[in-house]
C-alpha cells in the first residue's frame, strides 16, 4: 500500500463506543427456570435418592446468562480435578448436592458443562476396571 493510501487510511477517525448494557429482555429467561429445576431435583434427591443431570450446552442461553447461572450457584467446600483426555473439574456449589462439572480436552478447549444434583458425581469414584488394573500393577511391583 502506498504511503499516501496509508495516510488516508490512518486519517479515518475510529471511535470506540461502549455498547449499552443489553436490554432487560436479552435473557432467554432460562436462569430462574434452571434454578427452579435444580431446586426440584434437590427435593427429589432427598426424598428418593434420584440423581439429576443438566447439560448446559443443550439449553439456549443468551450472552452472559451462563455466567449469571454459575454465579448464582456459587462455589462450595469441595473441588476435585482430574486429568483424562484433558482436564476436568467437579466443583460443589454453595448448595450442597449441586455439582458443577466442567470438561476440557487435551487442547484446553471447553467441551462440556453439566450440572449434577447428586450425593457424589459418578466421576469421583474409582472404577472397578481401573482398580483391577491398579491391583495388577501393584501385585507386579510387590512380586517383582
Amino acid at each position, binding site marked *: 500500500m502506498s504511503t499516501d493510501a496509508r495516510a488516508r487510511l490512518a486519517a479515518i477517525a475510529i471511535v470506540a463506543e461502549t455498547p449499552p448494557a*443489553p*436490554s432487560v429482555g*436479552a435473557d432467554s429467561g432460562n436462569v430462574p427456570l434452571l434454578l427452579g429445576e435444580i431446586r426440584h431435583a434437590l427435593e427429589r434427591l432427598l426424598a428418593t435418592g434420584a440423581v439429576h443431570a*443438566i447439560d448446559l450446552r443443550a439449553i*439456549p442461553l443468551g450472552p452472559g446468562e451462563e455466567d449469571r447461572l454459575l454465579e448464582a450457584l456459587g462455589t462450595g467446600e469441595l473441588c476435585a480435578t482430574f486429568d483424562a483426555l484433558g482436564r476436568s473439574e467437579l466443583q460443589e456449589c454453595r448448595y450442597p448436592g449441586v455439582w458443577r462439572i466442567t*470438561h476440557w480436552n487435551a487442547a484446553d478447549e*471447553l467441551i462440556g458443562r453439566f450440572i*449434577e444434583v447428586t450425593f457424589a458425581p459418578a*466421576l469421583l469414584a474409582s472404577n472397578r476396571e*481401573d482398580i483391577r488394573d491398579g491391583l495388577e500393577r501393584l501385585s507386579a511391583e510387590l512380586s517383582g
Partner: protein
Amino acid sequence: MDALNIGGTVGEQLRAQGVSRRGFMKFCATTASLMALSPALVPRIAEALAGAKRPSVIWLPFQECTGCTESLTRSHAPTLESLIFGAISLDYHETLQAAAGHDAEAARNRAMEANWGEYFLAVDGSIPLGNKGYSTIGGVSNVDLLKRVAQGAKAIVAIGTCASFGGLPKASPNPTGAVAVRDLIKDKPIINVSGCPPLPMAITGVLAQVLTFGQLPELDHLGRPKAFYGQTIHDRCYRRPFYERGQFAESFDDEGAKQGWCLYKLGCKGPVTYNACPTMKWNLGASFPIESGHGCIGCSEPDFWDWQGVYRPLSTTRWGGYQTLGAAAAVGVAAGAVAALAARRKQRPVGEDEA
C-alpha cells in the same frame, strides 16, 4: 493413521492408549452432549461405545472449498485426534493424512478392500457432471470415484451443503453442472450433515452417533439427523422474545441492533432454517451469527444461495419492479380503452356531446 487396523473395539482402543475408565466415562458424557442426548443416557452410551467396533472411514473431497474439513478440525469434543485415533479409523483424508500421491491412493484401496461393505464414506463438496474433467483426484473424475467407492460403503455421510444439496457450485447458473451425493447414489443410506460449513460438532456428533448405536440416526425429510436439524434457528433463538414483542432492528447500526433486538427485518432466515447454531454455537461455544448481530442466511438449507437476498426479510417477494408493473398497467389501460371504445358504440349516441 493406521489404514489396516481392522477390528478392535473403541473401548479397547482407548484402553490401549492409556485412557482410564474415568476418562472413558468423560468421553461418553461429552459425546452424549455432542449428540444432543440426555445425560441420563450416558451409562448406555458407555456400554455401547465400549463394545463398538472401530469402523473405517474414507473421506472423499470433491468440488469443495475445504471449509468442512476446517470446521471439523475446530471440533473440540471429542477432539479430532481422539476421534481419529480412538473412535474411527480415518483411512483416507487428503488434507489430514501424511501420505500423498500413489501411496495415498494405494492406502485407500487397501482400506476399501479390507473393509468392503463395512466402511463409511464421508463426502464433502458437490459433484460436477457438466464435464468430468472439472474435478478429479489422481486423474479419476469425482463422479466415477464416488460411484466406485460408494459400492463398498455401508453408508455415506454427505458433509456440508455442497455434498448434501449441491451448495454453492449448484447456485444459478450452475456452470459445472454440480449435483449432490443423493442425486447420484440411490442404493445406499445417506446422512446429510448440511451447513456451510456444518457445525463442527454436528460432523463429529453424527460419526459418534453411528459408532455408539451401530445404526443410522433418525433423519428428517432432507436426510439430516434430527438431533441437530430437528428444530429451526427461530425456535431456539434467544432473541425470540423480541420477535414476539415486535422489537426489530431496522438497520445494522441503530438502537435496536445495539440492544440486541430481533433481526427479522434485516433478512434473518432463522424461521425457515433447520440447524443447531443457537444451542451449540460456533468457535467453542462463543457465539453464533445472530448473537453477533447478523441474521441467519439459511446455510443448511437446499439452494439457499438462490434465495432472494440475504438482507431481504422473509415477508418480501420478488415483484418485478416498477417498470414491469408500469408496463402491465399501460397494457391494461390500453385494453380498457379498447373495451370502452367498443362500449361507446353501443351507448346511446349523444351527438356532439361527450363525457
